[in-house]
């Protein structure tokens, strides 16, 4: 062929020459969609801000819906700082291959939990073998998402009313997960009453609104401190902060007794009379009504 003849461009070439990379990606997405088809509601619990209680609220909400007779499982999407295994008391359970994928470990009350905290001891960081040293900042997030995709595709989620996904901190992660899960997933955002936290969560709202994923509302955690002696909820943060521009689902006071259950992995056994649990039970009912309206 002479130099004068115009060479074909990328878009002139049909297919990819046999590597079928895009075909594999599309097939994997379809597999995930099929595997989640038995789940009525997929809810991502995020914030953007770290340390506001996303995992604790996720576990509590799962318990609240479990008490309402709903079938509930949780996926701990915080690969690097997984907390749900400990909160659920499932740090030391075997992983069992079932007929339709990985069997979801369950708490005594029947809440399913998939967490990297079950896979990797707390004394170790979650690590991926690499052939390229010093470049993990480039590929690590991709690897984490592909690993999470494997868990969505190859776990036997079965028939569920709710799958809660506990997100890692980071505004950009809210956006990435909204893109990753698609419009089937609704978001609940967690904040505490500080302006610092609310500022970050406001950014997360703005980021998620750029995607098709709906936001159900937000929960204000640590809205006060429950004193067992006086049986009163006392303030932890100055009052009068502006509210966020999405529905407030409820406020949850901090109860040291419930916090102790969190550390012990007995969160589902914590007293239903605790103001924390009472608030979250009301919030669960509100979420249910919102979803089924």
């Amino acid at each position, binding site marked *: 062929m002479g130099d004068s003849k115009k060479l074909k461009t990328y878009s002139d070439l049909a297919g990819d020459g046999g590597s079928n990379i895009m075909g594999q990606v599309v097939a994997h997405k379809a597999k995930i969609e099929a595997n989640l088809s038995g789940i009525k509601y997929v809810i991502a619990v995020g914030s953007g801000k770290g340390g506001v209680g996303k995992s604790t609220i996720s576990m509590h909400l799962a318990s609240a819906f479990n008490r309402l007779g709903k079938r509930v499982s949780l996926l701990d999407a915080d690969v690097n700082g997984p907390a749900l295994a400990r909160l659920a008391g499932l740090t030391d359970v075997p992983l*069992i291959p*079932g007929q339709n994928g990985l069997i979801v470990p369950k708490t005594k009350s029947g809440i399913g939990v998939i967490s990297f905290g079950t896979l990797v001891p707390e004394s170790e960081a979650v690590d991926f*073998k690499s052939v390229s040293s010093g470049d993990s900042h480039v590929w690590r997030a991709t690897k984490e998402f592909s690993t999470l995709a494997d868990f969505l595709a190859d776990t036997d989620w079965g028939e569920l009313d709710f799958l809660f996904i506990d997100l890692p901190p980071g505004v950009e992660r809210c956006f990435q997960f909204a893109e990753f899960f698609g419009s089937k997933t609704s978001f609940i955002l967690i904040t505490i009453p500080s302006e610092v936290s609310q500022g970050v969560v406001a950014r997360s709202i703005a980021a998620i609104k750029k995607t098709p994923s709906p936001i159900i509302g937000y929960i204000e955690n640590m809205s006060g401190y429950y004193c067992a002696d006086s049986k009163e909820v006392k303030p932890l943060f100055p009052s009068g902060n502006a509210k966020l521009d999405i529905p407030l689902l409820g406020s949850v006071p901090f109860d040291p007794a419930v916090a102790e259950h969190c550390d012990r992995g007995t969160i589902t056994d914590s007293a239903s009379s605790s103001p924390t649990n009472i608030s979250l039970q009301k919030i669960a009912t509100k979420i249910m009504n919102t979803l089924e309206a």
Partner: protein
Amino acid sequence: MKFLCTSCNTQMKLVKNEAPLKPDDHGSLSIRYECPDCLIEIAMLTNAFETQMVTSMGVEIGGETVSKSQGITLDESGNMAEANSEPAAKCPFSQMARDSMMEASETDSVNRNEDEFPWTAQAMVRLQNIPEFARPMAKKGIEKFAHEKGFTQVTEECLDRAKEEFEM
């Protein structure tokens, strides 16, 4: 990424390998493409960084990796007569990662050669069908359970019993 034979102005095709691709000691892969018209062949050579990027996507490229249904031969009783000792990863690169993880998990394992604990083909297929990241721990945990319960091999019955005993 596509490749064009500039002599023929024809798209080059991936030359599939019979064995799974593995990076060399420097993390480099050699992936061959051929022009279907003039049959000229080229090799795309990746550096470690590029290899890792593709690995992280969790896709298969450039080779015929052993799929979930391949590589396993059953004997008359339904046991595995011939197979790889480990389920193959869907991605040739991630095979390396799992191999490495297996080495790590064996370090703190019970004083027993885990390779000697056989799995039936059906049980092995189940193991292949769970997330790759979870396989080493699942394998280790189930073999420990099977050993404690007096199983001589990991069978589907053993897996079902573990499910029952752990109330899953």
